[in-house]
């Protein structure tokens, strides 16, 4: 993977920021709220989250089920918009972006691993991983090479032509990881990426995240497992739509 060129041209601007101001937060949330309305019922999934994540940080988000972790992650990945509050991504106000800008951000800056994998059932693993590259305008030959490299990196080099239905849950999860890292984004957001994996696969995937972190990427992952969170440089705990504590991983691992 290290030998492959990055598919984007304008991420250089992003990189420049990262190099010049290492401590500049890549993510800055200010009193972000998210309210879901289902009929007359309103669910406050996020109740004023303010959070700052620095470039190159490895952050773990923990918290009980229904505490708003996934909701937060979707907003960070520009897949959803907050009901109120502000969000700066690499210094840019996401609230002011139009559809094309958002598509661009999702494609080039963020790699997202969904809790439910979200693979296209009709496509092979290889084609699934190629999708973001297609929208990035990478040509077919290079796309195949990059997708192959990403799948090999998650240990699925021998499952290229399998469709999601022909893969185990853990393998599907790893295809989803491969798809998230194939564009080599600066920010990797993973919603319980090891939730369905055995200990060997978990170790493989976490190894990948460690490498990405080591090469300067920012990684944010949601997990219920303490030893997974233990690899992170910082742990954020959520409860009832709010961040209740931010601690460094040593504390998190000890608790």
């Amino acid at each position, binding site marked *: 993977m290290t030998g492959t060129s990055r598919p984007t041209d304008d991420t250089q601007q992003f990189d420049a920021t990262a190099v010049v101001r290492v401590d500049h937060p890549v993510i800055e949330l200010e009193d972000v709220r998210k309210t879901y309305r289902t009929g007359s019922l309103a669910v406050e999934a996020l109740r004023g989250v303010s959070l700052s994540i620095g470039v190159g940080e490895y952050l773990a988000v923990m918290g009980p089920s229904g505490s708003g972790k996934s909701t937060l992650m979707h907003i960070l990945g520009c897949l959803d918009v907050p009901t109120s509050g502000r969000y700066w991504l690499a210094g840019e106000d996401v609230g002011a972006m139009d559809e094309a800008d958002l*598509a661009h951000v999702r494609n080039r800056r963020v790699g997202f691993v969904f809790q439910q994998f979200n693979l296209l059932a009709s496509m092979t693993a290889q084609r699934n991983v190629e999708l973001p590259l297609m929208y990035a305008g990478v040509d077919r030959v290079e796309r195949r090479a990059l997708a192959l490299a990403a799948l090999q990196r998650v240990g699925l080099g021998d499952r290229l032509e399998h469709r999601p239905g022909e893969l185990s849950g853990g393998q599907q999860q790893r295809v989803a990881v491969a798809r998230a890292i194939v564009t080599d984004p600066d920010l990797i957001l993973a919603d319980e990426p090891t939730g369905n994996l055995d200990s060997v696969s978990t170790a493989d995937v976490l190894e990948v995240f460690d490498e990405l972190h080591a090469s300067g990427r920012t990684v944010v992952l949601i997990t219920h497992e303490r030893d997974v969170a233990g690899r992170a440089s910082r742990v954020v705990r959520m409860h009832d739509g709010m961040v209740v504590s931010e601690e460094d991983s040593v504390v998190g691992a000890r608790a």
Partner: protein
Amino acid sequence: MNALETLRTGLEAIRTHRLRSGLTVLGILIGIAAVILTVGLGEGAQAKVSSEISSLGTNLLTVSPGSSTSSSGIRGGFGSASTLTIQDADALESKTVAPAIAAVAPTTQSSEVLTAGNSNWTTTVVGSEADWLQVRARTVTEGRFLDSQDVADHADVVVLAPTTAEELFGFEDPVGQTVNIAGVPMTVIGELDSVGSGSSSSSTTDEDDEAIVPITTAAQQLFGGTSRDSVQSILIEATSSTTLTAAYQETEDELLVMHHITTPADADFTISTQQQLLSTATSVDKTLTVLLAGIAAISLLVGGIGVMNIMLVSVTERVREIGLRKALGATPVLIRRQFLVESSILGLSGGVLGAALGAVGTQVLPSLVSQPMSLSVAATVGAIVIAMAVGLGFGVYPASRAARLAPIDALRNE
């Protein structure tokens, strides 16, 4: 993402949903073929009637005595004498008076009993002149037709239509034989061609069953009557269909002069054209075509609703896919373009296949149902356009709506 990539993505999606794509194409195909066949049936019938009528001669005028309002009334003064005479017909034959007129045939007719040997047969005896053959667009298969000498000489000669000849002489050659008409022996000099009975104009007479004699002979020896010069109608052929109006005008002007009438409203004759008959007949058939087109439109609508359903279900099912593609970096424009390509391919292939089926049907069906059909270009193009519009409208509109959702909302769609 370039155009080729978009096309490839569209094709891939079509291949993935093979059954659904097939059903969509089938729906469009059947709708279009139905429209082409029903409209083709209507237009075929219309073309058949038109050609039958125009085979009678589209540049034909018929002058009848009396005004159209009093056509059944008997005029006073000189008994029941008709207002049209052989002199009127002769005047119209002048090339200087009426340059747009090619042929003039005054006619009288009556039903008479014809006898030949032991056979007898009642038929229409027509008294006319040499131009009758040209005006009626007939030919003789045996012998010859009347000539001007026969008319001048009041010759006792007759030309028989094929049915009449067969009734009187069986399969013998009638030419040279003698026929008694109203007690007058006449020599058969020719036999007319067959035009086939039961044609659309058959309400008046059977053109295969009649006997033609010189008008002078008819007036003097056969029909009698108070005025020997009166005729029942004058058949006029214009030099071409473009000069028909001129011929009409010349006829009217000349007859008004001949009859010493100053205002056309007082005319004691009526001029009618085959065009009038043609337009009546075609307007009847147009109604038929409109009716059939209506049925076709309804079948297209029903087919369209089917296609619409499949498209809507398809897009709804694929809202998750749209959400995922957006999450991975597709812009709404790209999503819309992908569905546009998919819908266009389905609409176009259904349209082309339907048009092909319709075209083949218009060639094959006429021989099976013995009904003429013609391939209507307007109906074909119209049907394809409608099918495309249905496909695009119901394929692209819901997709572009889904493309406007936040990716996560689309992904959560069930």
